[in-house]
């Protein structure tokens, strides 16, 4: 078998059902081997960045490994943003890149790029295959490394001549690496310490992160919170790990988290971090984060423990396994007073916005949340709409909120939603982007049309790079520098791609258009023209502490031209 045939057979052995890719000279042999294969669907994206985000969306929505295949040189370098994104957010993907022939490597050969060197700092691991006899084992190892322990992207560079060489195909049954052995179980001594701390806590908080979802441990976490009566706040990546309909839920914490979750964290006496990495968007100034609390940290990556914030009880292990170990050892806590205090905070400082004639992004998001009952895979982009999606959608299932959090990659949503739609047919997949981010990867509309991928594409169009505009307004004396932005006629654009387009410009149309969108078979694009200037609150300015929190001002969502102050209607929601 040739290397190219071995490659294809190996993917089948890994049960890969879809590959997002883009051909070129260095992988033409691989594409030839793919030609007659029906077990693997190959989706030709319109840009390699789109292929990698699609693989990420597939992985995040399904929990399986995403796969991308691209050519050497520019094909490979176009994947770097997606790979860095997957690295920051611990997304299991394997990216295969073509490479020039072994003997040409280092010669500035046509379409040569040292992609192994370029991606070393943004991959969990990467490989250059130098011998066809090592190909199958390398592919096996790549999938193993990507999906075990703390997941992450792995890149495999495939020189053209290696893929043409022949050898006998034999796919390893298992992987044994003496240098990489992830540990799932928590150390009993640490577990005992944790149990003792939990039993004593009066004002405990569970701080739940993306690791809980990566570990498929939403069920265990929910059981743990309910058994112990401990209120739950999640990070941006933890949304969906705990149902936001439960009274213990406090929604998201951090820079744009709810007022009450940040307040609870500030006053809690025990903070249990579950697969969360104390990111600076969450902690603000680290020495003032949860200052009164003892801290327990469950994380599979030892290097994330006590990296930003020193913890009292580190538990290295898989969230699912560790929670299973802890569950029988914990008992119900009397947190009635603490929960009552939190309930009061929720009533006094709910999430809120003022509705008027013109559309507020918050309103669209709430309408989609209500219309779907949380039964939708929401794929956000980066910016103000992303934060409002975290706040105003009520998440009830894991893997229903996909976003680029660590790298904050604009242009993520559209291709990622396409990937998610290949993984999930049980719920609608809804992409929401700002006008800025949408224009970064809109080429994938063609891919979506070609394969009739049933994504519902929402553009929340404020005509601004809204998040940057907000910072310029608040911290740079309202000097708006290069943030106002022209965009195309999105409805016509959709139609040009053969996708039905809808538009709403006033609030009273929102619910109807959302219904129409959800009722449409196949892909559909909806533009909501929203108010131009509105700010995301609450906000803890970067690097500051809880005490600098700015709650949602009563005069936010200011009246627009054509609206009266008195016409504005205050809408409040509280998570949990």
């Amino acid at each position, binding site marked *: 078998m040739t290397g190219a045939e071995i490659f294809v057979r190996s993917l089948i052995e890994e049960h890969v059902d879809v590959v997002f890719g883009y051909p070129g000279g260095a992988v033409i042999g691989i594409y030839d081997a793919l030609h007659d294969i029906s077990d693997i669907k190959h989706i030709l994206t319109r840009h390699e960045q789109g292929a990698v985000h699609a693989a990420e969306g597939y992985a995040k929505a399904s929990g399986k490994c995403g796969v991308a295949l691209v050519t050497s040189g520019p094909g490979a370098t176009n994947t770097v943003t997606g790979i860095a994104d997957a690295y920051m957010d611990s997304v299991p993907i394997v990216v295969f890149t073509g490479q020039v022939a072994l003997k040409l490597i280092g010669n500035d050969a046509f379409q040569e790029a040292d992609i192994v*060197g370029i991606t*070393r*700092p943004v991959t969990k691991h990467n490989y*250059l295959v130098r011998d066809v006899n090592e190909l199958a084992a390398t592919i096996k190892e790549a999938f193993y*490394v990507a999906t075990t322990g703390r997941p992450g992207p792995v890149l495999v560079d495939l020189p053209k001549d290696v893929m043409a060489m022949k050898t006998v195909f034999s796919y390893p049954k298992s992987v044994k690496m003496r*240098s990489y052995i992830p540990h799932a179980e928590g150390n009993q001594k640490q577990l005992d310490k944790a149990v003792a701390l939990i039993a004593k806590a009066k004002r405990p908080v569970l701080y739940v992160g993306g690791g809980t979802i990566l570990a498929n441990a939403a069920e265990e976490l929910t059981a743990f919170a309910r058994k112990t009566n401990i209120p739950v706040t999640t990070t941006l990546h933890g949304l969906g790990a705990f149902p936001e309909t439960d009274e213990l839920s406090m929604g998201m914490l951090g820079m744009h988290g709810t007022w009450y979750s940040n307040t609870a964290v500030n006053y809690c006496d025990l903070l249990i971090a579950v697969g969360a990495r104390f990111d600076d968007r969450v902690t603000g100034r680290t020495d003032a984060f949860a200052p009164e609390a003892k801290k327990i940290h469950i994380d599979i990556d*030892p*290097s994330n423990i*006590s990296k930003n914030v020193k913890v009292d009880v580190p538990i290295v292990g898989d969230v699912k396994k560790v929670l299973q170990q802890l569950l029988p050892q914990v008992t119900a806590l009397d947190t009635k007073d603490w929960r009552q205090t939190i309930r009061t905070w929720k009533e006094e400082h709910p999430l809120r916005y003022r509705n008027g004639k013109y559309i507020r992004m918050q309103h669209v998001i709430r309408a989609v949340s209500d219309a779907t009952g949380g039964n939708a895979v929401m794929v956000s982009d980066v910016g103000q709409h992303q934060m409002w999606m975290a706040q105003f959608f009520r998440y009830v299932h894991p893997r229903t909120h996909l976003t680029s959090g660590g790298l904050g990659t604009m242009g993520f949503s559209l291709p990622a939603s396409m990937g998610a739609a290949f993984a999930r047919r049980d719920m609608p997949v809804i992409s929401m982007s700002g006008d800025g981010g949408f224009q970064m990867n809109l080429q994938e509309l063609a891919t979506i049309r070609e394969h009739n991928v049933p994504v519902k594409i929402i553009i929340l169009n404020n005509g601004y790079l809204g998040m940057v505009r907000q910072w310029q307004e608040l911290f740079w004396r309202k000097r708006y520098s290069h943030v106002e932005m022209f965009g195309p006629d999105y409805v016509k654009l959709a139609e040009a791609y053969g996708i039905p387009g809808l538009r709403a410009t006033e609030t009273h149309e929102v619910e109807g258009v959302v219904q129409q969108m959800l009722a449409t078979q196949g892909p559909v694009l909806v533009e909501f023209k929203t108010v131009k200037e509105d700010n995301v609150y609450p906000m803890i300015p970067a690097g500051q502490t809880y005490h600098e929190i700015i709650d949602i001002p009563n005069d936010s969502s200011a009246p627009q031209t054509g609206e009266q102050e008195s016409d504005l209607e205050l809408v409040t929601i509280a998570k949990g």
Partner: protein
Amino acid sequence: MATAAETPADQAVHKHTISVLLENKFGALNRVAGMFSAKGYNLESITVGPTEDATVSRMTLVTKGDDAIIEQIIKQLNKLIDTLKVVDLTYESFMERELALIKIATTAENRPEIMQIVEIFQGKIIDISHKTLTVEATGSGQKVDAIIKMLKPFHIKEIARTGRVALKREFVGEV
């Protein structure tokens, strides 16, 4: 600025010698060196070479940092997929050696004095010409520093140092 006396013990910056065993694979040195530069850690010296097992390389690193930074460095080294074992030798009894080649411009007049210094340090003269003399010095980093310091007043033309290699000491008791 905090004086040494005010700095809490765990925030004091110390020099550490760390020994790493790695799979002997293509690019392993790059992964380690890249990690140090990406994270902004200090790297005073790094040496790498084969071991008794052909599939394993040993890397010896000399770095500086407070306790938290050293802890992160060790965790990050362990996190690299090819890493087999990381040992911070600093808290153990260990042997270390470094080798330096020192080329000095000489004259007939100062040559004897130089040779005397070399002898005191148990160095070797490994090359000699009318105008130069090259010394091989081995020993702990401190010893190599010391001989270089002694030779400084003469005209040192070039120095090549290997960086440190180290192994844990098995002998227990006074040396």
